[in-house]
């Protein structure tokens, strides 16, 4: 019973803060709501007993990326952006897009309920109530044994990107 209550709490929290992110005038407010949205999803991960994912979500997203977001928001002078008139013309384009996407999603949800052929594809198993065995070891097993090559490639790619950023940002001292 607690699980259901928690799930709905986290779910609604995530949706509400996601909406608020888009509608807030001040950038810092929307950054905070983005953080709450991320933490809400982390809560759901925890509910699924995926502890490693939960903590990675917190460290990576909330602790890492969002700190950079807030840094940038504070450092960049936001006056200029506020004066520009908000995207009036795009209103219609947005409406069309929203409608098409909404109908598409609604159609598949309906089909999955009834349609037979696609059940296997869209059959989302209910959240496992049994305890997952500690998945940190499983993830590290996968990451460092089965997919060691892509892991190294990705790290080299990141390294290059970092060095590039440092070189570009280096002030002509």
């Amino acid at each position, binding site marked *: *019973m*607690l699980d259901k209550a928690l799930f709905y709490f986290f779910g609604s929290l995530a949706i509400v803060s996601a909406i608020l992110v888009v509608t807030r005038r*001040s950038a*810092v*407010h929307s950054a*905070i709501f983005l*953080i709450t949205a991320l933490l809400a999803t982390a809560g759901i991960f925890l509910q699924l007993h995926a*502890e*490693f994912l*939960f*903590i990675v979500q*917190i*460290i990576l997203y*909330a*602790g890492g990326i*969002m*700190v950079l977001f*807030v*840094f940038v928001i*504070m*450092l960049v002078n936001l006056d200029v952006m506020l004066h520009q008139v908000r995207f009036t013309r795009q209103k219609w384009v947005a409406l069309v897009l929203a409608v098409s996407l909404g109908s598409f999603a609604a159609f598949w949800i309906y089909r999955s309920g009834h349609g037979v052929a696609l059940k296997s594809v869209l059959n989302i198993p209910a959240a496992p109530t049994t305890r997952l065995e*500690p998945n*940190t070891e499983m993830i590290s097993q996968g990451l460092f044994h089965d997919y060691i090559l892509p892991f190294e490639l990705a790290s080299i790619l990141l390294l290059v990107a970092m060095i590039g950023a440092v070189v570009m940002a280096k002030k002509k001292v």
Partner: protein
Amino acid sequence: MHGFIEFFRPHVLPLIYALVIVAVLPLLAGYIVLVERKVMADMQARLGPMRVGPHGLLQPIADALKLLIKEDIIPEMADQWIFWIAPLISVTAAMLSMAALAFGPAFQVARDINVGILFVVGVSALGIFGIVLGGWASNSHYSLLGALRSAAQLVSYETAAGMALVSGLLLARTLSIRGIVEMQHAQGVWFVFLTPIAFFIYLVASIAETNRAPFDLPEAESELVAGYMTEFSGFRWSLYFLAEYANMVVVASVATTLFLGGWLRPFPNVAWLWPLDHVPALLMLLIAGYCFIRIPKQPVRIQQQFIAVVGLLCLLVAAVLAAPLFVGPARPFMAAIHGGFWFMAKVFFYIYIFMWLRFTLPRYRFDQLMKLGWHFLIPVSVVNVMGLGLALALHWEKQWGLAPALSLTTAATLAVALWLLWAQRERDRSDMEAQEERRSQGSTVHAR
């Protein structure tokens, strides 16, 4: 109704522990402040707070009361909403990270969460938001500069602390906190003796991470007044203060768990050192005795009664600590009670080092602080992790003895550290010369 009770049964104990933590922490933080002021006074040939209660024992309560009553000013141009939530974020991050810590074999809120240490580090990293948003919301130039500086400092020293923890976890081969302590119990040696460098790096990095002692640049009084805390006053300011001390306790407990053997008694497996079990009770008896001796010296009658009560309390604790040794039925609680004592003793020792450094060392300048972090601490911690990995690999695969392997890698890491220091000094000297002749050929500029 039955279902409800049934449903709550597994959660009762953690809830009680959580309540204890949330209640005890502010009190603990207050008394750490008192101990800090007393130690500082002692080092500076003076007495420290003596007025409120005998030997200033009631000073934290007086401080808390003052902060509660003090007017809570919100700057007019400040962002009210963020101004209200920023200190909250800091405090919740600090308190939340206490959840995973095990203060004794039994006393742990999140029972057997198997990402233990990672959870603590991750959640305490959220504390940065409290500081950064606090600085931003108070809309004053000084506090923003202070906030940016402390955020930069936290981020850069978290890397070093993270790597130091990694080398500890390599030895423990598990993330869960109970697992780490049990591993140290099994191996019979604390990890601080196996990787002393990692402990040292974690000590330095944790000082920087909690903005203390030589690294307390963000609220260096002489420069940016009070850094990000400038505009906060009254209860809001005390939340930041509580967050800082809670962070200190968190960082100290992580170090104790990982390097100083959590709730283990020193030399847990050595049989002939059994008298060590009596030490906690004897210590408490000693304190009680001192309180009773001091009774006649108290100036006011009420203070005499108060110190008598404190003496009795210490006696009670001594009895509790001695119970498992002598009284039969209490024997199974031995580990829990003594464990808690030893854990708290180690945490206080770690915090004492913080205080000790604070009153002897002057403050680093911001660029020196960053240079120390990036040019020295992080490289050495990475080398230490690699060295340790190598040593363990040799130990497991090639069956080398643990001691020779570890001593070899520690020596190698020390060599790298010394080389880095030497390179740093060369770089400083060349900077000095460059600055020197840039200054000498500069013309004598008229002072305005």
